[in-house]
Every structure is written in C-alpha cells, then in structure tokens.
C-alpha cells in the first residue's frame, strides 16, 4: 500500500462529504450533493474515492463521501475521521450535523467545514465553518405559482402537497408552495383547495413510497391536478401514482424529471418522467460545487452564513429538454415572479402561519 501511495501523486485538494441518514441513492437531497461532487471531479480533474460508479477524471482533487448511522456520536466521528485524514473541506449534509460539525470545527482549525441546512450561531467571516442555507420557500413559491397558472382556468381543480417527515423544514416547502399557488390562481385561495399531507413522524417517512402513493391517489381522486412533494425517497410513490392517474407531479431537490427521462438503465422510468412537470430545485450540488470551487480556486474560504436563494439560483425550478414545451407558456410569468421575489416585492412566507396570512392578504 505504501508503494501505491508513493506512486500515485497526492491530490492537491481533498474534499469530503458526510451524507444525511438515507444516504446516496435517495434521488433527492443526498444525490444532489453527490452530483456536486461529480461536477467537481469533471471540472477540476478529480476522482471520487471508493465510488462504485468509478467517477475519475484525474487525481488533482480527491473526493470522498461517507454515510453515518442514526443516533449517537456517529456523525461527529465521521467528520473527525475525515479531518484526521487530511481533508481540506468537509461538508455535513443536513441539519442533523449542526452540533457535531461545530464541535469538530473547533478541534481542527485548519480544516474548513460547511454545514448544509443547519444553523450554528455566532459565526464570523474568519470562522472555519460556513452554514449553507436555502430559501426553499422561494423555489416552492415558483412551482406553486406554476401549478396555479396551469389550473387557473379550471375552477374546480385543486393542487396538493405531500411532505415527508413532519418537520419545520418541510413546512417551509409547503408554505412557499401554498403562497405561490394561491398567488396565481384565486380559486385556490378558498379553503380546501390546496391539499396538504405529511407521511409520518419519523425518518421512515422519507422512505415510504407506499404511503406516498396512497396519499397521492387520494389527492388525485379528490380533484388535484398537480401534486408537489418534499418527501425524499417516498416521492417515487407520487410519480408512479401520477402516471397511473394521468395527472402531474412536481419533484424536489434535484431535477427529478430529468433523472427519470435520462435513465437509460431503467426503461420504464421514461414513461413516468413524462408526468413529472418540473422539480423545485434545491441546489445542494450548487452549494457543494461553489463552495469547493472557491477552495480549489485558491481563495480562503469565508466562514459564516450563506443562503442560496432565487437571487443566486441556489433554488429554482427545473427546466429541461423534456418539459420545456409544457412550461413554455408560463416561463415569462415565472420570471416576472422571480424578479419580484428577488426585489423583495413578494415576501414568501416560510411557515404555516405565514402562509395562511399570505393567502388572507391576497383576498
């Protein structure tokens, strides 16, 4: 082994990621982070270490991801191991890393850490920890607005939202969606026109396609034309139901429609992808990519807080070759709304109460 190590030129940069529980393959949050790694490898001659997919474009940048088990000190331990192994930049994906990453960052002042979705108080520009947040409500507002626009001419048509685990974070998605839908379609402002449902109370809610499918069936039966999900791995149940019902669905985090349409290993996926209208993009990949790019570019990484919002395309909605025809009629209107949000003219609510007030304010 020593010989091997001597042969291979040491990578100039080592970047590590510790995923959220659920890990790679969730077709959503973690995969998005993984895609960030892939782009990094491509653009900066890097490789992903021990990756079954063998992503390898050179040896300049070593990329590594790990997956913890739930509970205990596991997250902290994995962050520490990566630190000890000399990784320069380490990401913790998910709010569950909040405490552990703060502790580890203190112990390894020369390593930089980035926390996705969590919030550690009192960070400064020269901290070695950056909190990366997303304005999910803004992206959700746009897909909500799109849904509203698409059903505006059908007074009875409803829209729906399926949440995974009942968490404040997921309510952020819901609030934005409600606000957007109500904003563009006044029919939807009436009570009971925007359906909402959470799958469960624990982590398994993000991995329960059966229940998601069951909820989706009810929503479509009850008149929903479009259903948006923020339910991680459970979302697959929504998409399949959408296909069966011949109705539309909206994905989350990554461009899920594109994922389905371009999946060559999986012929059935294309059939389903047609029913995925768009996805609310939460560009975890972008966050990973941009932060790492700064490091590789030689900049000293800035600590503190960084929010990815509509303004910097950190969130958004997916427009790709497959859905551009369907969305074509609405993109202009959506761009206009986006501008209003960026300018602050529209303040998108981020929780249930805010959403209710927002809808009331529209009447």
């Amino acid at each position, binding site marked *: *082994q020593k010989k091997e190590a001597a042969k291979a030129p040491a990578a100039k940069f080592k970047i590590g990621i510790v995923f959220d529980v659920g890990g790679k393959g969730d077709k959503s949050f973690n995969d998005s982070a993984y895609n960030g790694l892939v782009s990094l490898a491509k653009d900066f001659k890097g490789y992903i270490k021990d990756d079954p997919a063998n992503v390898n474009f050179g040896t300049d940048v070593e990329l590594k991801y790990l997956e913890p088990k739930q509970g205990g000190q596991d997250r902290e331990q994995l962050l*520490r191991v*990566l630190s000890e192994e000399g990784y320069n930049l380490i990401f913790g994906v998910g709010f569950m890393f909040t405490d552990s990453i703060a502790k580890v960052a203190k112990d390894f002042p020369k390593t930089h850490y980035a926390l996705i979705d969590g*919030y550690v108080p009192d960070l400064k520009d020269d901290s070695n920890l950056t909190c990366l947040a997303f304005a999910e409500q803004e992206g959700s507002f746009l897909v909500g607005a799109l849904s509203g626009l698409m059903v505006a001419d059908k007074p009875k048509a409803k829209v729906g939202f399926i949440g995974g685990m009942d968490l404040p974070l997921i309510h952020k998605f819901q609030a934005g969606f409600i606000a957007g839908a109500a904003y563009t379609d006044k029919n939807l402002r009436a009570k009971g026109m925007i359906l909402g449902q959470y799958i469960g109370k624990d982590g398994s809610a993000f991995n329960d396609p059966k229940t998601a499918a069951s909820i989706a069936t009810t929503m479509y039966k009850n008149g929903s034309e479009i259903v948006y999900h923020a339910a991680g791995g459970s979302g697959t149940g929504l998409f399949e139901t959408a296909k069966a019902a011949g109705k539309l669905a909206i994905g989350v985090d990554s461009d899920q429609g594109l994922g389905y349409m371009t999946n060559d290993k999986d012929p059935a996926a294309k059939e389903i992808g047609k029913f995925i209208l768009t996805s609310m993009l939460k560009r975890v990949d972008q966050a990973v990519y941009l932060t790492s790019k700064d490091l590789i570019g030689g900049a000293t990484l800035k600590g503190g807080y960084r929010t990815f919002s509509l303004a910097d395309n950190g969130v958004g909605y997916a427009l790709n070759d497959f859905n551009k025809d369907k969305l074509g009629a609405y993109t202009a209107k959506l761009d206009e709304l986006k501008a209003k949000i960026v300018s602050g003219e529209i303040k998108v609510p981020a929780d249930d109460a805010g959403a209710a007030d927002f809808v009331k304010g529209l009447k």
Partner: protein
Amino acid sequence: MTRVNKYTLYETVAPLIGFLASMIILVVIVIIVGESPAKAADAVWKMTFSKTARVATILSTAIPLFLAGIAVAFGFRAGVFNIGVEGQYFFGGFVGAMAGIYLPLPAWLHVPSVVFFAMIGGALWALIPAILKVARGIHEVITTIMFNSIALALVNWLVNGPFSGLAGKGSLEAQTAHIRPTAAFLKLNAGFRALGWDVPDSVYLDYSLIVAMIAGFVVWFVLFRLRVGFDVRAVGTSPDVSLYAGIRVKRIQLGAFLASGALAGLVGLQEVFAIRGFYTYEIASGLGLDGIAIALIGRNSPVGVVFSSLLFAFLKQAGYGLQVYTKVPNSVIYVITGLMILIIVVTNELVSRYIRALRKKEAV
C-alpha cells in the same frame, strides 16, 4: 486439565469460532466487491484498535448498547419480553431532558436527578404494558410494539409543539431547548489520562459510562445476590412454581417490567446529556432491537452483556472503517453482524452437543 475446565474451554471457544467464521465470510465478501482483504483488514484495524481514540470510541459506543441490552435482559430474566425498550428510552430520555432543562439544581444534584427522571420516564412508559400483562394477561410483545409507535408520535408532538426549542433563525430541527449546563454529562477523559490511558477529548467517555457501570453492577447484584433477584429469576423460570412457593408473581413481574423500563430510560442519556445537549426524536433510534440481540448473545447476564455490547460496538466501528478506507459498502457490516450472531449461536449449540457426546463417552 480437568474435565470441567476442558468443557468451559470449549464453551468459551464457541463465540470465538463464530467470530472468526464471520470474519472469513467478510473476507469473501470483500473479495467479491473487488477490494483486497489486506486493505479491508487494515481499514478495520485502523478504525478499531489502531489507536487509543478508536478503542475508546468502541467503549463509548458500547454504553447505550449495553444499557439497551441489560434492560432487555432484566426483563427476560423475569419472563418479560420487553420489545418496548425503544419507546421507553424515547420517553425516558424526554422526561430526563425536561429535568435537565427546567430543574434549577446544582450539578452534583442535577446529574443524578436527570438519571432518576429518565428512569422514571422509562418505567412510566412500561407501566401500561406491564399492568396489562399482569392484570389482563395481554401479551407484552404486542403492547410494547404498540407503545413504541405511540412513543414516537408522542415525543414528536412534544418536541414540535409544547416543548419545541426552536431558537433563532435557521434552526429547522425539531428539538427541545438546551439542557442546563449543570445537567451536562461531563467527560471523564481527563481522569482516564490521569490514570495513564491516553484518551483524547473528542471521545465521549462521560458520566453515562459510570451510569452504565453502576446499572450493570446493580443488575448483577440484584439478580444474583438479593432475594428479590432470586424471586425475579424464579418467576422467569416458572411462574407456577413461584406462585406455589409464595412468591408474589404478579408483583415481581410488574416490578421487573418497570425495572426493565427504567433501565431502558437510561439508553438515551449519553446522547442527550453528553453528545447533543438537547433532546430530539432521533435519539439513539433502533437500539431497542439491538438490545434484544445483545441481551440474548450475552445470555441475559450482566457480564455477558458487557461482552456482547462491546462486540456490537466493535462491529459498528469496523463498518465505518470499511466505509472510510475501502469501497466495501456500509451495508456489509449488517450482513456480517447478522451472520455473526447466527454463527455464534449455532456454534454454541454444536459445541454443547459435542460436549454432551464427550460426557456420554466418558460415562461408559
């Protein structure tokens, strides 16, 4: 070597054979995955015994596993099949956390109080299944499974609703407020270093280690030295005989069930009071089932549970070792853990058959 010693030797060798056999299977899998066994072995070594910090991490990881195991084992001893350890530590941990957050106490009193309240919480969560078992004869397996689900929903509501500690912006985690510093489980690492064991500060060897040691000792002492422990074991062996002998069977079963719950209440302490400093619904999940395996591999004895919990902790670390240093997927370690348990118990059986055959031969 005397005959008895020979048999004891065989019996101790059984788990070792199981361990080795599963390691061989691991090597096979590693080869299938296309990794070199030497590299895998090195990876496991690095993450388990290569340095003090790793060894200490195994010990630290074993703490909640041990507590879960001993909680299950104590119930088993009384013939109580407590599948509800998980729900009990969800709730017990919550009650302990409340004590840690709201009781204004000095540290010397606060730490014992949160331990006490966690035990009370765990016992309370076992109370209804225990009463239903004793008074109505309703199988505890079904009630405790139900109570696990109920606990999960309940603490979820508590943490999201009335006791939500969402402070400031950006904090999106459903969690309680932070515990008072007086309730924190401080690390003992400095003490270990003073004793010559060079544990770095990053490892969680905290008060929960003491809690686990005390709990283990108390359980052993109660079971094997106290009269009430004899009653517990008698009831677990034969309720009919116990009843006949004047042991208050229902009272003992109720008490043992509650004690099992109280022990279960301790499982989440390390995570709440040492690692996180607040309570979330995610506390140490899954340990209830691990506890069953740990208790049974440890043959429901406190000493056995020490070893089996260390074994489980070792396996967990080994899994991370493979993940960090090789391309062997994390899942392999579950495969190995499951297989190892099966192989150990089967070897145990084969060895005792062999011993019986030997004895028979010697009898002629």
